[in-house]
């Protein structure tokens, strides 16, 4: 697996597959590839170019960092991202520059300090698709913001632009979702869903009625909410959910 690690602003690049070119903060995807990006206690800035017809499976694990990630997708290219963030503020811009390009982005975050996700998806060409799922759990009494914009200009038709944003507020934190769909073409499909709140009492009751303790129910519900069947290895799972019980 290709891996880029950033710890306290120092970058370590380990490439095991051909097809990825990394120059400073720019990653060129010239063949189908997988990449793990780990960012800890840093301010990271990366640009990804995904060439025509290529696919990048990108996993991101980020903690206590401010990240700016810029993605450019050429014709028929695909980007699938599972992005796990703990106490992070992220700026994510994706530009679908080629027809039939496809973006699938799952962003899951937990925060104990004020955090934000600013995301813009720009459908610059026709017949492009984006499905964005942003799920956050605001654990304590700080702020969590999702500011998500999908943009389809008049020149792009046949696009699909979906965003699903949810934040669960576990204690007294302040959470906000600002979903925006800026659509100038009528021949497109665009949807957004936004949910702010807590777990439903009926969900808890249902699980507990099968003999599952409240703590275990929360674990199940949080895992389902944040990972939602996304495949993660045991180490990643434990790293992510350990944050929940750390003081």
């Amino acid at each position, binding site marked *: 697996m290709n891996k880029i690690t950033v710890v306290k602003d120092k970058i370590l690049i380990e490439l095991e597959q051909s097809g990825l070119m990394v120059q400073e903060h720019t990653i060129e995807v010239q063949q189908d590839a997988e990449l793990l990006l780990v960012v800890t206690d840093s301010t990271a800035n990366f640009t990804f170019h995904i060439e025509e017809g290529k696919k990048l499976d990108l996993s991101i694990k980020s903690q206590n960092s401010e990240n700016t990630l810029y993605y450019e997708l050429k014709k028929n290219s695909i980007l699938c991202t599972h992005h796990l963030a703990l106490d992070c503020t992220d700026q994510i811009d994706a530009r679908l520059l080629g027809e039939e390009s496809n973006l699938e982005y799952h962003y899951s975050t937990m925060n104990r300090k004020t955090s934000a996700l600013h995301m813009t998806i720009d459908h610059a060409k026709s017949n492009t698709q984006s499905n964005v799922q942003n799920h956050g759990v605001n654990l304590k009494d700080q702020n969590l913001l999702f500011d998500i914009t999908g943009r389809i200009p008049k020149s792009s038709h046949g696009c699909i632009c979906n965003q699903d944003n949810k934040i669960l507020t576990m204690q007294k934190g302040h959470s906000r979702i600002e979903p925006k769909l800026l659509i100038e073409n009528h021949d497109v499909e665009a949807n957004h869903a936004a949910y702010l709140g807590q777990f439903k*009492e009926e969900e808890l009751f249902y699980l*507990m009625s099968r*003999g599952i*303790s409240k703590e275990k129910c929360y674990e199940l519900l949080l895992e*389902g909410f944040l990972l*939602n069947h996304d495949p993660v290895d045991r180490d990643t799972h434990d790293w992510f959910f350990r944050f929940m019980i750390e003081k």
Partner: protein
Amino acid sequence: MLEMKNLKMSLAGKRLLDDFSLTIKEGEVHAIMGPNGTGKSTLSKVLMGHPAYTLESGEIFFNGESLLPLSTDERAKRGIFLAMQNPMSIEGVSNSEFLRTALSEKEGTHIGIFDFLQQMDQAIKDLNMDEKMLHRSINQGFSGGERKKNEILQMKLLKPSLIILDEIDSGLDVDSLKIVCENIQKYRIEYPKTSILLITHYPRILEYIKPDFVHMMMNGKIEKTGDLNFALEIEKNGYHGVNDMSELKLHE
């Protein structure tokens, strides 16, 4: 087995249980029928300890132990199972993870995936279910019938001693109703001490699961008690048209 004494409960200013009393002995089947809004489902939620359904007064004993101080999961661990009228769908939590966790909590030990699948295999076949449902989110995209079968699957896995069936027959087609009832009957034969509290609007299910007692519930309490013929009379004449001839002694 289960003793409910003088239960009183109101919600949003409406009296839902009004001095409700009922005793269910080991191995007995009790059916409760009654008009909509008369407190039948409320009773099931009170028994299971739903946090929004707390009693104003009354007592509930299960095998001699008061249920009131116990949380919902503790009641389930004591052997009470509620098959719900409208089972929740929960996005992101797979059926297999849910059921394996429930089984592990009951057994007090971690159940491995292989052991779990072995236990599930026959139960899934018995209920004529698609085993792919194990890997889907809980009840998500399930039809009404699949949801009810999923409730019975959970029952078979958790092996309760008191089963509350809250309108298990609603949303089931004729074939599915037969499969569900056959599975409940098979369970009763395997575990003859199991008691059942069955809430329904229709006597058809009572032809499959023969009740020892049929209670007519109105305005939060039991108005009359009879046998299966009483249920048929209710269907024929309606709740307000049943005559006094059918009344047996109140079961207390």
